[in-house]
Structure formats: structure tokens, C-alpha cells
């Protein structure tokens, strides 16, 4: 699939191989620093946000070489779809700076007490004149300490149903009352920026309310239905990278036992299945078809495949795996089963959507 984008795929691959060197992969992973210079280099070469297919191919090929760096250079646009779909002109003006690479965007949904429970968030935004006053905190926020703007999901009213009464705000991180603490000690994707955010009487102009008040939960769910496709692409790239490394090891060591042959066959088949699911979900985006069950199936399956591939590749290469950076691949893969909805959450979405359809 997507053969018409082969030239673009090749270009991204070349960028990744040239810039995601072993030294860079190890350095950014070890030091847990965001690769700002690589992000800038990637703009206009490896990053093309003009359509979902190019986004998916870009993410896949970059993560195939290294997910820590690949995700770092592709997430500065994180949340852009929320503004694109529901934002006003002022917000879209800010978005144009994000899409051109001048500014970095983030999205703050998860809270310390919440995790997967989006409707249970406690951060509040109280209307006061022509402003909203935001108080609360967010955790595990990608780009949290490097973003110029953060989309914040906050409770604007208490309703009988918890998912009602939530709204999204576009917050300038230079605002008084905003603070971000970078979180250290992640298992993997350590080049990416992850932070805890605090809002202490942060004032945001009402013009920065995205869409309608009280509709935030729906906006975020629609966004997740898009972003999960991109996480599936991250996972697919990781799985393919692990497979590449395993094949390199098997060929260079002339391994021919049947057990290893079967592992190769099983992993190849599984990756192909993950690819089909991911590309199918991508085509739903292209065709503006809303099928959360397809998105979640792609994300859950590709996520588990990334972890499976990393484990199998290490099983075959043993202690030699580090030579192919498989220790890092293994650590990077795990987040694919956690962020943007754990596998359990994806399974619930699939089942509930299918049951609702009856």
C-alpha cells in the first residue's frame, strides 16, 4: 500500500539514517534531552504534515530507525487537529506558526489521579468576566516543558454526567500561573520531552476557548481517534526496526535453525497484519470516516506487535542485541501499550463501539 509515496518514504528513510546515528541515538537516550537541532533539520525534509498518509509514513520510517528521536521530531504538532477542526481564527493563526515549525504545541489531558479516566479530570476553568481562571495539574504531558502553547482540557461546569462540562483552552506557556517540571527517568523514548504541568490561577482570555464550552470531552475523543493512528505508526516503525535488526543478526551469523526460521516467519506475518490495520485506519482519516473500532484495533495491535517484536529480536540476538540498539528498541516499545490509551482502554473502545452498533 501507499506505493505512490515511495519517493517520500525514501527521503524520510535517508534523513533518519543520516541523522539518527548510533551516537545520537545513545546520546539523547542517555542524557534525556530533547533533540531541538534534529527537529529543526527535520522540518521541510522528513516532516510533511499535509496529509495523513505522509504523516504515517514519516512517523513509521523515523521510528524504524529510532523511536526516541523519531517521535521527538514529529510531536511538536501534537494536538493541532483539535484547533484545525474546532478552533477560531485567532487560534488558527497561532496554529500556522506551529505547522511551520516556529512554535511547539502540546496537549494536556492526563491528570495524576486520572490516567485513562479522561472524564474524571479535576482541573477547573472558572469564567470571570471575559477570562477563564485555570487551576489544577496535568501529568505525563508530551512537550510539556518545551511547548509554546498547550491545549488544556479543564472542567468548566459540574454536570450529572462526568464527561459533560469539560472544555478545551489554548494556553500560552509564558502565561503567569503556568509551570512545567520535566519528568526524568522514563523507561524509553527518553529523548522526548515529558512534563508535569501546574496551573495556579492562570488567566486565559475567553477567545482561547476552543470551540464550544462543555464540548471538550467530545473534541478530545475525536482527536484521539486521529492521534491513535499516528501512535500505531510509531509502533509499526518500532516493530519493523526490531525485525530489521533481527534479520541483520541472523544473516551475519548464518543462523539457520528451524526454530529461528519460525520466529522470523511469525514476526513478519504479525508486522504485516499490524501494517494493514494501521494503513486501513490511515485511509479512514483520509476519507473522513469515523471508525473508532478500526483506530483502536490498529493502535492496540501495532502497540503489542512493537513490544512482541522487540522481545523476540532480543530473544534471538541475546546479549548481542545491544550492537543493534535492541536494548533501546525494547525500552522504547513499551510505551506503545500505554500512551494514547492503554491496550485495555483500546479493547474497551472496540467492544463498546461494536456493541453500540447493534
Amino acid at each position, binding site marked *: 500500500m501507499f506505493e505512490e509515496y515511495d519517493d517520500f518514504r525514501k527521503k524520510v528513510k535517508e534523513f533518519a539514517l543520516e541523522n539518527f546515528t548510533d551516537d545520537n541515538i545513545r546520546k539523547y537516550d542517555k542524557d534525556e534531552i530533547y533533540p531541538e537541532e534534529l527537529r529543526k533539520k527535520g522540518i521541510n525534509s522528513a516532516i510533511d504534515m499535509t496529509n495523513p498518509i505522509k504523516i504515517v509514513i514519516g512517523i513509521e520510517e523515523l521510528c524504524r530507525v529510532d523511536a526516541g528521536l523519531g517521535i521527538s521530531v514529529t510531536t511538536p504538532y501534537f494536538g493541532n487537529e483539535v484547533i484545525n477542526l474546532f478552533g477560531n481564527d485567532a487560534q488558527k493563526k497561532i496554529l500556522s506558526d506551529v505547522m511551520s515549525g516556529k512554535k511547539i504545541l502540546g496537549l494536556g489531558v492526563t491528570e495524576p489521579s486520572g490516567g485513562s479516566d479522561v472524564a*474524571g479530570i479535576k482541573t477547573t476553568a472558572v469564567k470571570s468576566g471575559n477570562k477563564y481562571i485555570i487551576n489544577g495539574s496535568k*501529568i505525563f504531558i508530551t512537550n510539556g516543558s518545551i511547548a509554546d502553547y498547550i491545549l488544556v482540557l479543564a472542567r468548566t461546569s459540574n454536570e450529572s454526567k462526568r464527561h459533560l462540562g469539560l472544555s478545551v483552552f489554548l494556553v500560552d506557556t509564558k502565561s503567569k500561573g503556568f509551570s512545567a517540571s520535566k519528568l526524568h*527517568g522514563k523507561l524509553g523514548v527518553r529523548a522526548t520531552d515529558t512534563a508535569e504541568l501546574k496551573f495556579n490561577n492562570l488567566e486565559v482570555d475567553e477567545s482561547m476557548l476552543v470551540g464550544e464550552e462543555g464540548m471538550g470531552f467530545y473534541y478530545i475523543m475525536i482527536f484521539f481517534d486521529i492521534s491513535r493512528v499516528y501512535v500505531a505508526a510509531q509502533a509499526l516503525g518500532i516493530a519493523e526496526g526490531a525485525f530489521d535488526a533481527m534479520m541483520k543478526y541472523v544473516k551475519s551469523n548464518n543462523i539457520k535453525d*528451524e526454530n529461528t526460521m519460525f520466529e522470523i516467519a511469525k514476526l513478519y506475518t504479525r508486522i504485516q497484519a499490524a501494517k494493514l490495520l494501521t494503513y486501513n485506519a490511515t485511509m479512514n482519516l483520509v476519507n473522513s470516516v469515523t471508525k473508532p473500532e478500526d483506530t483502536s484495533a490498529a493502535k492496540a495491535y501495532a502497540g503489542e506487535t512493537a*513490544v512482541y517484536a522487540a*522481545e523476540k529480536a*532480543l*530473544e534471538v540476538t541475546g546479549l548481542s542485541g*545491544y550492537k543493534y540498539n535492541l536494548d533501546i528498541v525494547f525500552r522504547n516499545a513499551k510505551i506503545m501499550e500505554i500512551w494514547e490509551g492503554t491496550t*485495555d482502554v483500546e479493547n474497551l473502545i472496540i467492544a463498546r463501539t461494536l456493541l453500540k452498533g447493534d
Partner: protein
Amino acid sequence: MEDEINIIRDNIKEFSSKNLDEKDIESKGIDNDLIEKLSSQGIINSNVSSKYGGLELDKKASMAIIEEVSKYSPSVALYAYISGIYIKSIENSEIEDISADIASGKKTAAVSFSNKNDGDKIYDVFFIKGNDALAVINNDLFYVSGTYEVRESLGFRGIKFGDLKVETKKKIGNSESFIKALKYMDPELCAMSIGLMYGSMEKAFEYSKIRKLFNTKIKDFGPVAYTISDIMSKLDIIKYYLYGNGRIDFAKNFISSIIIDVTRAAVNIHGGYGFFTDFGIEKYYRDSVTLKSLGFMNIKRELSDSIYGEKSGFI
């Protein structure tokens, strides 16, 4: 006998809870003070002959010790395992006397776990300090010394990992003595693995009782509760193989099949928090995959040879 082992377990649990902070051990390593304590507690010398200052404990007692230690600090458990391999490997060799120093903690053990060597370089050595190691080179066992090139290890970060550039080497036996030592320490390897799995699951079990999502404790969700219960029941079967009927090969095979899934489930149950070092759960996942590479690579062959009673499954 069971009562005695339970007393030993209780003592080791108490010692481990007070002295083995794995997060600290992973960042600072195992220092001299801790090694001396490990010796005085019988953790690194439980199955060593008394002529070398060891405790000569029953094999099951030795397994119980390493299992309990592994729940708190897989790195320390691995070091105890390495010490056991080292001491057994040099038995009746010309450097046999080193055993006393290893058992007392005056000297630390270092072992290469791969048969790879490239000219003057020995690969994949686990060590604490010093400049020497045991290594198999072309079917012979050598005591080598030189300079270490330290690499970042995926698991067991309390122990250093790297390659040794050999400056001097002394042949002390053949590879058979090293292979026998590995076999001798297989029960401890399994016990360490069980401890590692219990360590991760006990954390997940406790977390599931306090963590709430959707206003509900996560233990009340079927996928969480059933995963933990299922794993706990499997661990009990492995313990039976290990301590009950002594089928070490069965235990090893079972462990090999589930160890990564178990520690992965423990991370999953912790959600986003499980991905961070501070929560002390991701280390079990890293350790489990490293452990599988160390001691379980050939288990399928070993088991099928045992079941068939002859060489099998080699094509």
C-alpha cells in the same frame, strides 16, 4: 525442614527490606559495605563449602535465599548467582583458594556469559569492580585480567556490564567445568526468576488495591484482577516444580515462557507511572529480558533432550 526454610526466608526478607533499595543499587552499584553484609547474611555464600567460609546450606535453603533477595533487588540476586557460578567453576582448579575471598566478600566475582571473544577481548562480562573475570575461550576456561570497557546494561544495572580487554590470561580448566557450574546453579537461577516475578507482581497486587480509575479500585476490573490471579497461580506451579518435585527443567521452561509477560503485565497495571523509574516497577521488565538472555537461551533444547532421553530438536 520447611520450618527452617521459612525462618531463613523471614530473616532474608527483613534484611532485604532494610538494606536492599534497588533504585539506590541501580544508580550507585553494589559497594564494599553491602558486599560484606551479603556475605555475613549468607546471601553470597549459602551453598559454599565450609572450608572456604561458606554456610554449606541445603540447596532449597540456598534457593529460598536468592528468591527472597530477588524480590527486593534482582541485581543483588544476580550477583549471588554469579558468585555461585564462579566458585563452582574454579573448584579443584589452581585458583580454588579465591573462593574464600569471594565468599567473604573480600573479592568480587566476575563472569563472561558469552563464548564470544575477539582476539584479546572478552565480551558480555558482569562484574562489580576489579579487572579480572572468568571466561570460556575456545573450549577452555580462563582466569583473565585486563581493562574493562563498560557498557550500559538493559537490566541488572546494580552490576556493571561490559567487555574486558585481556592483558593476561591463565588457563584453569575446560569449558565443561563452567557448563557444570551453570547447571549446578540452575535451581538458583530459577529461584531468582521466581523472586523477580513475585517482586513485580506483589507491587502490582498492592497497587491494584489502592489505585482508582473511574471511581473504582482497579482490582475490581476483571482484566486486572484476572491477570494478577492467573499469574499468581502459575508462579505456584513453578514453585512446585522447583521446591516440590525437583523438575528444574520443567521450572526453567515454564519460567522462560512467562517471565517477560509477567513483568510486562506488572508495568501495564501501573499505567503511565509504570514507565518511570521512580515507581520501581519497570526495572523488573528490563531485568526479565536480560535474565532470559543470560540463562534461558537453550532451555527448549535442554527440555526436549530430557523428554526424549536423547539429542533432539537440533535442526
